[in-house]
């Protein structure tokens, strides 16, 4: 196989691996939107939070991985509860701008607290998977990418089953479908809001941990990965769980391909901006995305 095809395949494989993590983070984002029509403008800070807490428990407090990971997730759940109960519930029914700004507000608090506690230096992150590449045919694949992809797929499958079969999952879908009807049937809508925030903080934390181990370190630039959920959710449709799983991978591959092929032409950094160009194009052409409900608000 020629070098060019190997290059292409490598870009695609890395893109799929990173894109899967985007899907995971975007899942939390979409759940919040479906349940409470709140758009979280601080997804990056949730990712940072998970990564920093994981770093602190694993490397700083030297806990065993089997203790540290659940501990991180419990802390993430607590953060989700605090955000929902303390910040968003009082603002139910307020104008969109207030809800948007309040998510910026708590994102700023989270960033400040992280910075104050652990400083802004890059912290080495434990490699949860080996980085010694193996060869899939002629294409070198690094196990980090493979395992992060597998982990994400397992998690996404677990979430799908949870939504489809469990009672709580059904309640969440009911709430997303019609709040009033769900409430009249005995679903605790507030509970669903809280749960969706907890799931969001948990998947963001997991995303942060995976990204941290892929990059081998955590610092505040991890938050930029969190912002990639915007292109993902718009492409997939703001209220579609299936959509984000597909579009996360699409965005991941697309940013890698554009980075690989367009960087020499535009002088670098295309990878960072390409998803946002896609976002604007999708919004202009098909604002409900690939799988979203078509009753999107249009002027």
């Amino acid at each position, binding site marked *: 196989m020629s070098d060019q095809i190997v290059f292409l395949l490598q870009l695609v494989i890395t893109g799929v691996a990173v894109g899967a993590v985007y899907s995971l983070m975007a899942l939390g984002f979409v759940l919040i939107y479906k349940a409470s029509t709140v758009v979280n403008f601080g997804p990056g800070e949730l990712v940072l939070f998970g990564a920093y807490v994981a770093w602190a428990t694993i490397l700083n407090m030297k806990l065993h991985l089997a203790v540290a990971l659940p501990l991180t997730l419990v802390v993430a759940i607590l953060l989700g509860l605090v955000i929902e109960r303390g910040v968003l519930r009082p603002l139910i029914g307020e104008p969109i701008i207030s809800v948007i700004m309040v998510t*910026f*507000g708590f994102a700023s*608090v989270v960033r400040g607290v992280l910075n104050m506690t652990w400083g802004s230096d890059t912290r080495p992150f434990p490699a949860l998977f080996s980085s010694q590449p193996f060869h899939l045919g002629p294409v070198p694949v690094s196990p980090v990418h493979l395992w992060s992809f597998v982990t994400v797929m397992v998690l996404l499958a677990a979430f799908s089953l949870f939504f489809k079969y469990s009672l709580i999952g059904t309640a969440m879908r009911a709430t997303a479908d019609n709040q009033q009807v769900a409430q009249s049937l005995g679903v605790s809508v507030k509970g669903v809001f809280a749960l969706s925030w907890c799931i969001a903080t948990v998947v963001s934390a997991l995303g942060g941990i995976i990204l941290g181990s892929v990059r081998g370190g955590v610092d505040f630039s991890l938050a930029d990965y969190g912002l990639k959920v915007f292109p993902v959710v718009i492409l997939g449709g703001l209220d579609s769980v299936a959509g984000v799983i597909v579009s996360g991978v699409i965005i991941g591959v697309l940013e890698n391909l554009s980075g690989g092929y367009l960087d020499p032409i535009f002088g670098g950094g295309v990878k960072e901006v390409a998803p946002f160009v896609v976002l604007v194009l999708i919004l202009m052409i098909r604002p409900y995305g690939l799988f979203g409900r078509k009753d999107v608000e249009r002027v």
Partner: protein
Amino acid sequence: MQSGDFRVTYASDERIFETRLPIVALVGLLAALAFVPLVAGTYWLDVLNRIGIAIIGAIGLNILVGFTGQISIGHAAFLAVGAYSTAIFETKAGLPFWLAIPLAAAVTSVFGLVFGVPALRLKGLYLAIATLAAHFITTYGIIHWERMTNGVLGFNVAPATVFGLPLDSDARIFYLIFALVVPAVFFAKNLFRTRVGRAFIAVRDRDVAASVIGVSLYRYKLLAFVISSFYAGVAGGLMAHHSRIVFPDAFSLLVAIDYLAMIIIGGMGSILGSIYGAAFMTLLPEVLKLSATSLTGVYPNAFGLIASARDIVFGLAIIFFLMYEPQGLARIWMRFRSYWKLWPYAY
């Protein structure tokens, strides 16, 4: 004593000042402003200058978000375009500042017009997300269009000169900034007594109803973007002259959030609120800095924590205002004033 607020003519309804006292107070304030550079130290002059620039930018954003209801997270991009065009007009085309700043503001308006096109199809959350994306695309363009913008290095801007006098000190640039702040405030205040301003408010309150009574949504939404970005262009041009360097990092997403916070904290849909918000957001880090300086005796590390303390206080302030005083400082001031108007007979 008047027992109610009776307005029997249109003229009295549209009046900006209801009594003569505010006019006297305002003239006094403006006169006092003229003497500020003679008495204030460079530190406070610098703070005042930044407040002045923030006022212009915040009024621009408030016209768009607070009065017209078009949520934009792209204000930093407008400021960047204003600052960069000013720098390019001056350093590459050799224009004097009094030509470069208006031209830059015009360029920014055109940019705002393009920026506003998504608003014709999208609203609310979707518009906010679109402007967020537009911010990143603009920043990318600024960093990578190196032949025009010098990339990450940016520009050094020479001080503006008025009749051969370089405005190179805080005291001198103070006059330039406030010579623009005053008309900016008065234009905005008057804008909302005209058809255009009232159309903006109608679009914000209920766009369908506005279009039914003959307000062209198409035209007024774009016009709001144009006016807003004109203000941002002026503010950006002043930033270029105040800090005298223009570089991409000065216009990050955080700047856009800062400006949104200014109008939330100051008061959405209030010109005075924009002024209070601009002052609040500019003074906040300074107050933290001062308190850190006084704390260094007790806690030597205090200075290193300013940046993160600022983030925390800033976030808490936004959350606090949204929960307990959604109409911001402007509303607090109104309550304060009406309390003292009737004091000690509070009924």
